[in-house]
């Protein structure tokens, strides 16, 4: 809702503005929707001048239509598929995270969502040498864990430090700071983060439900509106800057008892791809690190593809030594 103000376009001066306000035309929408002939008569201004102003305002404020062919060309040249580093997970995601889209990982507690996010961040910053923005809303991210994962990739401390520097971390715990952070990223910080070492290729929000779920329910609409605003900002950022957005979500039980992602029906339309992580039932060892990823929403692949993967994949020893590494307990 843009209000009319002086100098917005040539011809819109103080006098005209006052007479428009007297005729109850206060915003751009009012001006564009009203009958120009009648308005010109009421404000005693020439029809031609008012028509010209309307045309300029319309051109300034509307979204410009793009031909399908141009859009396709642009997409072909700018869309990238970012591997998660784990081939089984990549298979579920149709070869990886697509830029310009939101991908959602949902799962219960201990299902490995945060570990997957860390693994993806480390893979992008070390293997692909690109920057990552990590927004942590649960407090579960520690630099020590990231360093641990990097130490299995390389033993060169300089490379480890470089890779760690490419991961930009934001810690926030409520939805307003999340919106602020996303807005500031859109208006310049994303470019700043790209300076000195690879452009930003992914924005990871772990987890988006932690800040939104407390606001939902009850009779207030503000929670739903904030959720849609977060979604809109993330999507626009993903599209405009060609980054892949990865968000995590909790799970709830549906009426029939099966597990489904949280945040309700209105959120379910937002991510383009949704994956559900679960513990593998028939694990022989009680502390198994195997998880299953099921595709529950995708525009490219048939749903319910399931793959089992190992959470330790991102911290496996890659330099040829034998024996499995034990996952350390997370620091308190």
């Amino acid at each position, binding site marked *: 809702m843009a209000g009319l103000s002086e100098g917005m376009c040539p011809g819109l001066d103080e006098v005209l503005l006052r007479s428009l306000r007297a005729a109850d035309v206060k915003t751009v929408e009012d001006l564009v*929707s009203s009958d120009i002939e009648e308005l010109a008569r009421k404000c005693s201004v020439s029809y031609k001048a008012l028509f010209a102003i309307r045309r300029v305002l319309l051109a300034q404020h509307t979204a410009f*239509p*793009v031909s399908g062919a141009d859009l396709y060309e642009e997409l072909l040249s700018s869309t990238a598929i970012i591997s998660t580093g784990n081939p089984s997970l990549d298979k579920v995601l149709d070869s990886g995270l697509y830029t310009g889209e939101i991908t959602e990982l949902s799962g219960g507690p201990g299902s490995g969502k945060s570990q997957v996010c860390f693994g993806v961040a480390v893979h992008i910053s070390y293997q692909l040498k690109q920057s990552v923005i990590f927004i942590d809303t649960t407090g579960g991210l520690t630099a020590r864990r990231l360093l641990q994962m990097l130490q299995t990739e390389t033993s060169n401390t300089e490379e480890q430090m470089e890779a760690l520097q490419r991961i930009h971390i934001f810690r926030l715990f409520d939805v307003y700071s999340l919106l602020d952070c996303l807005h500031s990223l859109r208006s310049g910080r994303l470019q700043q983060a790209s300076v000195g070492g690879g452009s930003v290729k992914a924005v990871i929000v772990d987890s988006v439900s932690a800040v939104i779920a407390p606001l939902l329910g009850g009779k207030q609409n503000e929670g739903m*509106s904030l959720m*849609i605003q977060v979604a809109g900002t993330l999507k626009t950022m*993903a599209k405009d800057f060609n980054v892949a957005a990865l968000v995590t979500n909790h799970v709830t039980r549906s009426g029939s008892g099966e597990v489904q992602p949280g945040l309700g029906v209105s959120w379910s*339309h937002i991510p383009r791809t949704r994956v559900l992580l679960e513990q593998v039932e028939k694990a022989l060892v009680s502390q198994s690190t195997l998880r299953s990823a099921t595709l529950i929403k995708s525009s490219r692949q048939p749903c319910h593809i399931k793959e089992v993967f190992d959470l330790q994949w991102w911290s496996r020893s890659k330099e040829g030594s034998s024996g499995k590494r034990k996952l350390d307990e997370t620091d308190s």
Partner: protein
Amino acid sequence: MTESGAQLFARLEARRCLKDIEPRLFPEDGGPNHGEVVELYGTEGTGKTELLYHLLCRCVLPVATGGLEVDVVFVDTDYSLDMLRLVSILDSRLNAGRPTGSSAASSDEAALRSCLSRLLVVHCSSSSQLLLTLHFLETSLSSRPGLALLLIDSISAFYWLDRCEGGASIAKQEEKLSKCAELLGRLLRDYRITVFATCHAIRRSYSEPSSASTSECDRPYLCRRWQRLVSHRLLCSKQESANNMAASAGGSKEQRRQQVFTVHCTSSSSSRTKAHRSSSFYVTDGGVEFI
């Protein structure tokens, strides 16, 4: 408002009627006529977007491959248009229509480009921008007589944003969408285009869906002005599919569970009494396949 002779001609000249856009979806001779609005309603994962791509492809493909060759405007309100998926469907339809082994890659490219050039995509990020964009599209409508279809995906994207902005009064909450619906109504009358819009469900159904009755969650919730515009309502839902035994005939390892989607169409335009039709389809790599 004065208009030139050319604009008048472009406005009154018959735009392509889309009655036969998909006879398997609509009741007997009940496809969307000039100036009618079709609403596709359903929860997530019920095939609405796939149906939209199917109808879009039918419109932009050349007549030789089974299309209607009309221009389409796609208003994208929640960045849900997946161009890569759309192009793969177009590709498979173009290839299916061509005899094997006849053409080179360049004519494929050219055919694809000409199809895509009939599509205009606009992104809107708020209902005010949607209103202004519809005003702007009026000029496109008057200059392109080949433009017969307006696709909106989705009309309910700003529902929660508007409700919160409107505060306590319902009239204020619905004001913006009402204005958009009013403008759409005028465009439909003046330019005789057809509109298809998707509407996301906001409530999940917890009960067993029965075939003919509309349950609590399928009731329309957008403003009254929009509901009055809608003449055909397509209720999309997912069928709980049994394991497709035919696919595993011969003991193949891959047991494909073909997810079947059902669409229930309710037509209630002024000239006819209410008519119903149910159809089912599943989704393949080449798009929607009706059963």
